[in-house]
């Protein structure tokens, strides 16, 4: 079986799930990696070292900035001439568009956010590849098949193991031509103040509504009730951020915290946000709505800190603390600092 693996990168920075897709492709057979853009030598080298049998490089100034149309047309042309059985993508904002468009060109379909693949005895038939994916915000799982060829699928971060990198490994390098049918122009870019990448984070420290619930704080004069609530929550999220930074992790949030305006949508776990699977998940002041639990329950170790001993979040946790997060979090940060020698 031949699989195309699309490497998603932004200004040369590869989305780690790209390599996880490569590992998955190798487990199915031949892996052909696609690298689009300019100045991508390092990515090509990494692709071979992560196990690519072949790397197809499309180096063209028309592809310097990601734009959906020429990227999709280039991908569709390569898939038409090289006829892979499967095209794998890391699930990102870009690949969602790119795969969507290319599927229209190739008259096939995209299986999104696939958590598991099962192969039947005859892998030559597309229908035999059964993908498990979440629907209804993860409240239900469905097994789906794609009758088109190639089958296209996106995989979320940390759903599949990252392959080992073997320095110096090489393979077949092929250059291909770009399609240049761009319909959009990129005029500018500003990096976010704090890049949030929950999907790839090994540690996530999350806050919920409880983070705004510190009556001992006095907000600055002149704030109305809502502003004061947000201000209080921000002081709480500062404590959460300290712990997350110390542990090299990311800051997450429940829907209540996002809807309350405490942090931006990018931090949201579960519900309409993201499904995450870090090694360590620390839930602070999150009672545990079903959507949130669905979004984080695949984490390896879950720690819950909540005032309410009956909070549902404790039913998914390995370790629980019934207490005031405003006291426990800073104390935990201090204890960790000492023990980690930082």
């Amino acid at each position, binding site marked *: 079986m031949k699989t195309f693996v699309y490497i998603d990168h*932004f*200004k040369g920075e590869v989305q780690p799930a790209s390599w996880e897709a490569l590992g998955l492709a190798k487990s199915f057979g031949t892996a052909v990696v696609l690298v689009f853009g300019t100045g991508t030598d390092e990515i090509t080298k990494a692709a071979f070292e992560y196990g690519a049998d072949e790397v197809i490089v499309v180096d063209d100034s028309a592809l310097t900035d990601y*734009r*959906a149309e020429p990227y999709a047309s280039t991908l569709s042309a390569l898939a038409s001439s090289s006829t892979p059985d499967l095209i794998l993508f890391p699930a990102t*904002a870009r690949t*969602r568009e790119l795969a*969507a*468009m290319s599927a*229209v060109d190739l*008259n*096939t*379909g*995209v*299986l999104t956010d696939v958590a598991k693949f099962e192969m039947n005895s005859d892998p030559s038939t597309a229908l035999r590849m059964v993908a498990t994916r979440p*629907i*209804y*915000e993860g409240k*239900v*799982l*469905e*097994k*789906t*098949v*794609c*009758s088109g060829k190639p089958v296209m699928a996106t995989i979320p971060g940390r759903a599949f193991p990252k392959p080992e990198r073997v320095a110096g490994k090489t393979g077949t390098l092929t250059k291909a031509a770009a399609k240049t049918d761009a*319909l*959009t*122009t*990129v*005029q*500018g*870019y500003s990096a976010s103040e704090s*890049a*949030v990448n929950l999907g790839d984070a090994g*540690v996530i420290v999350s806050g919920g509504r409880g983070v705004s619930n510190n009556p001992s704080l006095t907000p600055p004069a002149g704030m109305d009730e809502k502003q004061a609530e947000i201000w209080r929550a921000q002081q709480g999220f500062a404590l959460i951020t300290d712990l997350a930074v110390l*542990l*090299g992790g990311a800051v997450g949030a429940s829907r209540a915290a996002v809807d309350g305006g405490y942090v931006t*949508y*990018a931090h949201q776990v579960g519900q*309409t946000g993201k499904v995450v699977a870090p090694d*360590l998940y620390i839930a602070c002041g999150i009672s545990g709505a079903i*959507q949130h*639990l*669905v979004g984080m*329950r695949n984490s390896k*170790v879950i720690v*819950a800190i909540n005032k309410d001993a009956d909070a549902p979040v404790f*039913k*998914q946790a*390995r*370790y629980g*603390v019934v*207490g*005031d997060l405003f006291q*426990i979090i800073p*104390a935990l940060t*201090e*204890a*960790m600092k000492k023990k*980690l020698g930082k």
Partner: protein
Amino acid sequence: MKIIACIKQVPDSEAKVKAEDGKVTWGDAPLVINPFDEYAVEGALQQKEALGGTVTALCIGPESARDALKHALAMGADDAVLVSDAALTELDTVGAARVLAAAINKIGGADMIVFGRQTLDNGAGLTPAQTARVLGWPMLGLAGQIKVDGGSVTVERVIEEGRQTVNAKLPAVLSVVQSIGEPRYPSFMGIRKASKATIPVWSLTDVNTAASAPIISRVELMNPPMQEKEVEMITGESPAEIADKLADKILAEKVL
């Protein structure tokens, strides 16, 4: 400006959705306009207010989906169209994109099509880009801000790495994210107008297309295993003592 907001009807996000006898059920929870699509309607109305023109809400779904369209009308959309056909029960996203494109053509085209980023039910988020591809129009996805200037539109895309400014000629397909602004509540006048509105229902024949066999199909539904774990409660005399014990437990897990 002629703007079309594409919406869908889904079970309320608080609904207890589960798999039962091979079907998805949600008890007696209400069906509502997909929450992300409220932002689409909001974004479309903002552009109408800035530039003049009309907003048409477009939906594929069963007869019950009229209620979602009425919500869009109550928010301020000028008119609404429902595409409903018995042949559309097994629609996948490519199929939906083809039907939407056909309906958009039947409406007489538009300057701008606005989608929400994804739906709560399928959640794939593929339909906006696929509709753009079928129409052959530029796709401006995940817009947090929209600015139309003459015959072109500039959006600020909210992506994983930050914000990107992207421009395209109209007509274009957009999907919007929450930063577009909180969706307005339907006004009293809006609700009254919506309750009186007649919403045309178009069949596939009406939009000059046929249902294509779905490429993606479901073979099984499951409820995610929600096993309760044995939680170990950490207690102590002081926050410092609790934190110290907890830190040891975490370190012993070797996950850092």
